[in-house]
């Protein structure tokens, strides 16, 4: 079920009314309704993959107790079991065919023949999100940041909370679980804010993102037939499309959660007003970047083990972050590009320059310097988006090459004849 669908428009009010008028007598009833609604929400897409979600939830719930063991070996064993389980699910459904194809290419390169078996299975919706929920839970237990949840119902609600299920934000156990374990009371201001966020998110997604997508698709699909101006405008349009699409979805998720009395983590904070790449990554998909920072970058040593290790860790995080978005070399390249821009700031200790300041602080407009910084950062991010948007590396390079060569071709932005249906 998508947020911008007729089914969700019917689903949400029903859940809201049941939640506050029928099931609000007890906390367990509230959570039971949320869980049922979440499973219904997910099952609307696929009842088969709902079983996978339930299995994943159950396993991580049980692993949590093992990880909490005082026996360090046992604790580590269950931690690794959880990692293997979650990444295994992700690996099979999302990345198996990619690796199989790459193995095939690799063998071909050395003159050997390898005939892999490709699996024909749909990618379960939200798999990248709920596996990360589960992982963050066991990691936090392992680090002693929290104890395992006794109630399976509470844990299941944490993993499967339907506003988050499809596209995040990626919540943390220490942030969401306490809310799940406390009875929610209706708050007028919170509900109004939630409604406002939902409407704003719908506007961004449906009006801006979906409108831009048609022309963006046309330009990216037929970039060989557009001039440099069209291609630049197309790339900029994609920057806004992806922002409005993703942040719109996040707004709807956060707004929906507010209607049910939950406060979720913010996921976007005006990223295109960033003055450098480091600031951009503190403002874009905040829940994901902080997840990778806390559960990958810092455990790897962060920036505390020398410059070489720092460089290694930054590349690992950005490349994996790119790969998380999709099983394609282009996403990895996209991550690598951002790593190359982020590293100099980190190595020169300039990555935290704008942590405590905001653009145009105590002014109505940004300064010329801030404006230039924002434009440069936005330009770089837009350039990197080309790799994110294209299906393969050669097309990405072709797109950029065409801009650079500045060939003038017939066809302008928005006026090219539409690729007609059959």
């Amino acid at each position, binding site marked *: 079920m998508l947020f911008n669908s007729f089914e969700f428009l019917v689903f949400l009010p029903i859940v809201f009314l049941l939640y506050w008028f029928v099931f609000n007598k007890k906390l367990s009833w509230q959570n039971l309704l949320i869980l049922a609604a979440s499973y219904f929400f997910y099952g609307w897409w696929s009842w088969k993959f709902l079983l996978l979600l339930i299995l994943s939830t159950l396993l991580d719930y049980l692993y949590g107790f093992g990880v909490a063991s005082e026996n360090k070996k046992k604790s580590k064993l269950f931690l690794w079991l959880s990692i293997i389980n979650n990444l295994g699910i992700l690996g099979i459904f999302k990345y198996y065919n990619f690796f199989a194809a790459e193995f095939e290419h690799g063998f071909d390169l050395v003159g050997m023949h390898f005939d892999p078996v490709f699996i024909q299975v749909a990618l379960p919706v939200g798999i990248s999100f709920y596996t990360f929920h589960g992982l963050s839970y066991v990691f936090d237990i392992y680090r002693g940041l929290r104890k395992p949840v006794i109630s399976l119902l509470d844990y299941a609600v944490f993993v499967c909370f339907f506003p988050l299920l499809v596209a995040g934000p990626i919540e943390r156990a220490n942030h969401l679980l306490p809310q799940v374990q406390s009875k929610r009371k209706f708050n007028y201001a919170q*509900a*109004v804010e939630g409604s406002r966020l939902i409407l704003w998110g719908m506007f961004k997604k449906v009006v801006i993102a979906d409108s831009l997508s048609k022309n963006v698709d046309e330009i990216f699909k037929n970039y060989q037939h557009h001039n440099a101006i069209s291609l630049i405008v197309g790339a900029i349009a994609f920057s806004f499309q992806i922002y409005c699409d993703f942040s719109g979805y996040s707004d709807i998720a956060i707004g929906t959660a507010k209607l049910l009395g939950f406060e979720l983590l913010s996921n976007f904070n005006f990223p295109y007003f960033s003055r450098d790449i480091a600031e951009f990554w503190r403002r874009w998909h905040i829940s994901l970047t902080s997840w990778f920072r806390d559960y990958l970058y810092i455990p790897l040593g962060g920036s505390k083990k020398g410059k070489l290790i720092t460089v290694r860790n930054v590349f690992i995080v950005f490349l994996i972050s790119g790969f998380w978005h999709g099983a394609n070399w282009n996403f990895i390249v996209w991550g690598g590009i951002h790593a190359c821009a982020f590293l100099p700031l980190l190595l020169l200790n300039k990555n935290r320059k704008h942590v405590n300041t905001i653009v145009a602080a105590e002014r109505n407009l940004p300064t010329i310097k801030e404006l230039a910084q924002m434009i440069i950062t936005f330009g770089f991010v837009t350039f990197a988006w080309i790799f994110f948007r294209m299906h393969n590396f050669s097309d990405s390079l072709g797109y950029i090459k065409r801009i650079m060569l500045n060939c003038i071709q017939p066809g302008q932005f*928005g*006026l090219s004849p*539409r*690729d*007609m*249906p*059959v």
Partner: protein
Amino acid sequence: MKKFLREILLYLTCLYVAGTFIIYILLKTAPERFLGYYSDFVMWDFQKKVIASPEKIGRNIIIGDSRAMADINPAIMGHSFTNLAIAGASTYEGYLTLKKILQSKKIDTLIVSYGAYHYTVSDNFHDMSLPYNFPTITQLSDLESVENKFGITIDNTPPSTLRILNRRFIYYHIPINNFRATFVRNLFQRKIDPYTASMSANSGHVLFGKKDSSNELSQEIVQTASTKSFSKNPVLILYLDSTIKLAKKNHICVLMVPPPLNYATYKALEKTQYLTEYNSFLSSFKNQGPAVSLIYLCPYLPASFFGDRSHLNARGSNYFSNLLKKELEKSNDLRK
């Protein structure tokens, strides 16, 4: 809570009513702008007007989808030919076209030409046929009876009361659950009419693909990514059969002319279950009596004959039309 519910209901109601009213007015006053892509609307509107004016139509007609529009050029076939294919149309619209014309005109030859894809789904029914009011409301009801009988709709979804209701909203341009996407998109769209001049001058023939060569894989490949078999939609096949029956009843010679695929698509489909079943389906037309002929000119053509992934360019269209004309002359099926 009561205050919140009251306010949110009032706010959403006002927003919805105002928005619906504005969109409805704009749909009624400027349908060519807001009912769909401007170029789609003008093309369908043009064909509807031609169909409604049988004196402008030759005694030999072509029905089909956009491949038929591009591939078969009446200027080469002869002045008695009119291309009444419509981009995005399926066998359903083809049947309605024939039925409408036969009310006031005698037809000698009917060329039927659809891409394989359009025997499996009518994916433009809700975007074009319905909002452009191609069928009458009675014909729409008849379609829904057929869909209920087969348990599947023309666009491969389960029939339901909700869908019927939604169709009525689309048909009468009531923007309750529809048109927002086209409305918003078309707010920023400039008017483009690249087709009607050509359609008018060339008796319905249009070149969609403008490239000199195209090896891009067509919709059939996209389809085989999700289904290995050539899954005919029973509703569409029923309307195809109905078209043939209607033609036979009116002593019209029916020529099934499958459009060619580009070479890359053909190679990708070769030896697949999809192509085997499609060929078997086409072969079934050989056994439908003397009034029905299968003219399978070429399963594929080189990339240089294609202007995009599905449609022949000028070179390809000329070649294909000449080939078809020669074949008809050979079999003496050409009606002057």
